[in-house]
């Protein structure tokens, strides 16, 4: 599950974490993994719902010192 890119969205408020994630995912090839870091607690539910609606796979979520980390595999 090696991420090809890490997106730092820390300190950004909704909707920016998803706006940036969407943009970054566009550059990836199918099957590649994006790692997203955010401090927006609301992103937890939103990112998983967004991934689902786009067919992407949310492989893992971790929380460390208030930073949420997501690993998303592009559809």
């Amino acid at each position, binding site marked *: 599950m090696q991420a090809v890119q890490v997106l730092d969205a820390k300190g950004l408020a*909704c*909707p920016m974490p*998803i706006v940036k994630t*969407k943009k970054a995912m566009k550059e990836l090839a199918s099957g590649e993994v994006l790692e997203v870091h955010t401090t927006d607690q*609301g992103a937890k*539910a939103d990112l998983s*719902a967004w991934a689902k*609606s786009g067919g992407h796979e949310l492989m893992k979520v971790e929380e460390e010192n208030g930073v949420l980390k997501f690993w998303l595999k592009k559809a």
Partner: protein
Amino acid sequence: MTVNKITAKQMARKIIDKESLFLLDVRNSSNYDDWKIEGHHFHYLNVPYFDLLDGVEEILPKLPRDQDIVVVCAKEGSSIMVAEMLVEAGLTHVFSFEGGMKAWSEHLEPVKIGDLSDGGELIQFVRMGKGCLSYMVISQGEAAIIDPTRMTDVYIDYANESGVTIKHVLDTHLHADHISGGRQIAEKTGAAYWLPPKDAEEVTYDYYQLEEGQPITVGTSAIDMHALYTPGHTIGSTSFIVDEKFLMTGDILFIDSIGRSDLAGKAEDWVADLRQSLYSRYRALSDDLLVLPAHFMIIDELNEDGSVSERLGTLFRHNHGLNIHDEQQFRALVTDNLPPQPNAYQEIRLTNMGKQQPDADEQREMEIGPNRCAVRS
């Protein structure tokens, strides 16, 4: 571009005035399904903001042209974005809901309930977004506050504007659905903080013991405000009778439902207490008392002026929870098929005991979501 806004206060007014409004809620569907802004004549469309990043064309046909549209999200970032897109697409009458559901959860609307016999008055603070009700008894330059929320400035400002000193702060019980502002108000104003001792066995702070028969004096003419022990929602739950006119029932009796007894983990044990409080203790009181609960569940419980109250006699006729004659049936109502428990209710109880000290943001997160303190049938 600046987008027009609607504040929580304006929204509360629109609900009370039964205005019609179209709400475009752009939170994710699970949050929307859990909790939204309720109005008598509101229409809704829920489309998450992340499905609108490429444009709003797809939803345009679903939006009204002749009605105000308010875009709602969690904290307003996304609703501003979506509202801007709608305006760019040529829609007028589009507003962003200021502060989002976070602001909605925290807004308190003061409504006057009535006058007291010595010229004082009783104010109800309606927390529309969460269904919490708190009160201020004002008399002769003094005030007592009952079941205050953590938005303590609202009460302190209100007292200052009314030129009165807060002398007492009381909680009818240890709350599980919201964080009490009682201790904080007492600390800021020097008022006495009262709590039923049976609910306070584990608290980490000093308080005044609220026992049955305890008179609380507000103002020089001593508004008669006495405590009545009515366990069932919690073991300490206490009601207040104010000026022989008003009955504050806490979380024991609501307008269209009754209290649940499981939030402190003891539904089975406390059913008999709850029944005794509702069917014997309240039954013995005057039908003319105006019941003022600590919560409402649905907006149908709001009166014309936005207040939540009803005569005790009327509730004994119409509240289903007061009309279950079979004890087993009553037991089943309050122990089976209970609604989901409030968000973070254990953490909220610990916070109200003083055992946890979450910061402001954490407190806000803990309280997110609807109120769930009642059982209805």
